[in-house]
């Protein structure tokens, strides 16, 4: 386990004064990814359009202490890959020196959906970069529209719950598995740093491992959005634990094709425990929607069983 005192002496790379919502999970993720950098390393960060982007760099202010670039919604990976390519060429020509790490941040909209092609391309080309998706399960920046990461049943502004339709009708896309299929040296699924859990430093450890791996890396991090999820901000990390304990969001990593589940709950909790505290699923608890909860449970179980199988646990 990393030493907190040592970590607290590391330089701050993402400052206060950003304009994310109070209690937003994204800065927690950013903080701990960047803490995994060594102090003598400089980061070049490419950021997809989204909450993190619009809130962290509003002219003339930036919360980033490393170099940062935003160009558009769908191309954080392509933009970052260009910067990485320039570094390689300029280093070869003796035009730059120093240690640089290339990172891209995107939300689920910019990663699962509009940015999927550019992500796939950059990863396939093998750029030495880490792409981090902070997945809060909807297009929160534009006002909580459904994405392909939105869980089934969620009430969003473009998958609203109504008399005829009970919120989002599809299961969420499994992007982590899509990235595994790219045969990258490192793919991981994680959550923010949650004190008091056996997997407290899962995110930090995975980021460190990613930075120590040469080549294309991908991390998918479930990130709480109290506004979009309609949950109590102060207890949002409790909700993250439930995502892990219900196996809705398993913590695992795939290194060169080898699966490892980082945390297997002793007792798998029913999905209702994760759904219930969130306003976006409130309608599912009406009697007529019971079958939807059952469907969700079955799918969560199926995916978890598959993961256990892939990891050789079962």
């Amino acid at each position, binding site marked *: 386990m990393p030493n907190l005192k040592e970590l*607290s002496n590391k330089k701050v790379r993402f*400052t*206060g004064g*950003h304009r994310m919502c109070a*209690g937003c999970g994204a800065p927690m993720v950013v903080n701990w990814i960047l803490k995994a950098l060594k102090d003598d390393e400089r980061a070049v960060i490419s950021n997809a359009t989204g909450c993190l982007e619009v809130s962290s760099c509003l002219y*003339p*202010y930036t919360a980033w202490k490393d170099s940062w670039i935003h160009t558009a919604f769908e191309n954080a990976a392509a933009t970052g890959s260009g910067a990485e390519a320039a570094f390689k060429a300029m280093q070869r020509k003796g035009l730059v020196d120093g240690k640089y790490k290339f990172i891209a941040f995107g939300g689920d909209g910019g990663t699962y959906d509009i940015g999927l092609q550019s992500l796939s391309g950059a990863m396939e080309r093998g750029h030495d970069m880490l792409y981090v998706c902070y997945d809060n399960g909807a297009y929160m920046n534009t006002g909580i529209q459904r994405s392909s990461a939105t869980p089934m049943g969620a009430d969003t502004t473009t998958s609203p719950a109504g008399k005829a339709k009970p919120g989002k009708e599809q299961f969420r896309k499994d992007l982590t598995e899509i990235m595994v299929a790219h045969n990258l040296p490192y793919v991981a699924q994680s959550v923010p740093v949650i004190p008091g859990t056996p997997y407290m430093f899962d995110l930090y450890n995975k980021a460190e491992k990613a930075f120590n791996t040469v080549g294309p890396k991908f991390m998918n991090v479930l990130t709480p959005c109290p506004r979009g999820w309609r949950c109590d901000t102060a207890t949002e*990390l409790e909700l993250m634990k439930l995502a892990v304990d219900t196996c809705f969001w398993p913590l695992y990593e795939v290194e060169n094709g080898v699966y490892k589940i980082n945390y297997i709950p002793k007792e798998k909790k029913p999905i209702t425990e994760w759904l219930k505290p969130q306003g976006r699923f409130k309608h599912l608890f009406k009697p007529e929607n019971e079958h939807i909860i059952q469907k969700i449970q079955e799918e969560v179980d199926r995916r978890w069983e598959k993961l256990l199988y892939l990891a050789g646990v079962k």
Partner: protein
Amino acid sequence: MNNRKMNITPNTTWRETTPGGVVIDAGNAEDFKTGDWRAMRPVWHEEKCKHCLLCWVVCPDNSILVENGKLTGFDYDHCKGCGVCTKQCKFGALDFVPEE
């Protein structure tokens, strides 16, 4: 802050602004105060604090001040009062109270 390279004010003209809106003062968002977003306020009771830093770990706004591994207080200029930190304290060292 006075050690900034840019001096962009609401009156900055097009001739004085930076090309393409580049921001050349990394981390200058510190100059932007988000403390007035707070409706609730975390209050630190130093005497009960064990300096476990678990509150610092979760703060989304880097507003918990730590020096040499010890908590020294809150940066109320930036703390937005989300309360996530107060939930982490097992020692009763953090209260969460309405702003006056």
